[in-house]
């Protein structure tokens, strides 16, 4: 058990969506390596409050890496230096005494900053609302085992469904593209037999909404996969490109969906 450390934080402070932001330098003293990164921020905030100043606003909830709420870029990496680890699960033992740590919010036009490190990720919800579902109104279901699903597909679907909607992929992408998030949902539902009826409409509408939210486009940098805390794979992006091509070029536009080409 190594002993406490002192760190220098460079934190982005921004009063609200309208105001300009700037970096503020803060000291974090007596930090135990067993603390999580957010617990370190708690300690700093306790100090700030006692001085009557405004504590650092940051998003967090479950603090066990599953809700996808925590969101901050630590030393240039979304969720910090540890692979497959959310900021709330990152522990201070990944740093050493005297380190300087830069903390920034997710940066994307589609994720406007609301305060300090807190951003608005409503765009993700709107993308899901546009088509990220299987239409199965309550009560319409048949017996669950009427529909055997090859284990491999079920497992692949699960891997894609593991996405926690944190937005680190967007934050990491040099183009601020949401392709990994969107493709994860397109793949999860597209890999399952239940998802087939809406498969083409789904990818069409979700991509349309993704573009409408003004995310960037994918030029295959692969940063998203590298900083995804759930290891969602680039294969999903390829799968979505495939489906989209099929949906827009091969499939006849369904009467239901507007537009087409």
């Amino acid at each position, binding site marked *: 058990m190594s002993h406490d450390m002192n760190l220098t934080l*460079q934190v982005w402070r921004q009063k609200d969506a309208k105001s300009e*932001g700037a*970096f503020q330098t803060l000291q974090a003293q007596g930090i135990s390596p067993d603390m999580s990164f957010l617990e370190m921020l708690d300690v700093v905030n306790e100090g700030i409050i006692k001085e009557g100043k405004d504590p650092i606003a940051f998003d967090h909830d479950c603090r066990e890496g599953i809700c996808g709420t925590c969101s901050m*870029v630590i*030393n*240039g*990496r979304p969720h910090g230096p540890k692979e497959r680890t959310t900021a709330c699960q990152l522990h201070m033992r990944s740093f050493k005494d005297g380190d300087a740590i*830069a903390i*920034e919010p997710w*940066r*994307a*036009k*589609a994720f406007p900053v609301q305060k300090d490190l807190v951003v608005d990720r409503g765009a993700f919800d709107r993308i899901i*609302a*546009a*088509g990220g579902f299987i239409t199965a109104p309550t009560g319409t279901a048949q017996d669950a085992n009427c529909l055997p699903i090859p284990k491999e597909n079920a497992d692949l679907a699960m891997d894609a469904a593991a996405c926690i909607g944190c937005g680190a992929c967007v934050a*990491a992408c*040099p*183009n*601020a*593209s949401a392709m990994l998030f969107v493709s994860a949902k397109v793949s999860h539902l597209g890999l399952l037999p239940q998802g087939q009826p809406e498969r083409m409409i789904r990818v*069409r*509408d979700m*991509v*349309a*909404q*993704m*573009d*409408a939210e*003004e*995310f*960037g*486009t*994918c*030029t*295959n*940098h*692969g*940063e998203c*996969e*590298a*900083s995804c805390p759930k290891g969602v794979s*680039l*294969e999903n*992006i*390829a*799968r*979505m*490109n*495939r*489906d*989209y*091509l099929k949906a*827009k*070029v091969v499939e006849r536009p369904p009467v239901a*969906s*507007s*537009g*087409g*080409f």
Partner: protein
Amino acid sequence: MPKEASFLASSIGKKIVMAVTGIILVGFVVGHMAGNLQLYLPAHGGEHPLDAYGRFLRTMLHGAGIWIARGTLLAAALLHVWAAVGLTRMNMAARPVPYQQTAPQASTLFSRTMRISGFVVLAFIVFHLLHLTLGKVGPFEHGKVFQNVVQGFQNPGISGFYILAMVCLFGHLRHGVWSMLQTLGLSHPRYNGLRDRLALLVALVVVLANISFPLAVLAGFVKL
């Protein structure tokens, strides 16, 4: 729900245009490189194989062939650039406030410089056409392809620019070829390793061969 964008207006649509035109362009560059290897063949019957090759290109299908080829290439290049510009616009708008600090994990120098490398290649093509097709640069004699090439490359300035352009082309292909496959949805855990090696192979072969031409001339290994 938004009225869905048309294929060409959509982000993925543009990407696919990028990829499809990419295939055409890559195909051309590879073939063209192969054709140019004839530079190393000895002259026979008074005419250098490269000249014969040039004549063949200009006369195939009673002269129609080359125009079909040129048409396709031009269209591909224009669409490619059009898509590139469109994507680049979207991407720049998508992050108004930049990061103070970034720590790239997976992206490469090549992936991050596609725009620059692409642009240099574009500039190269223009220059190259002026040089060897229209003969607006330096000594040029219509039909004397071999002679034009050798005389051109004897000028270190010209050779230098060719080599620089080829370095950019390397970067562009190195990322571009695998990117193209990914964009077209060609991904499978079993073969994904291959995708990357293919990109490296294409980029290396094309560029090394292309660079060898000016060097061979400068070294006096190929002369009139």
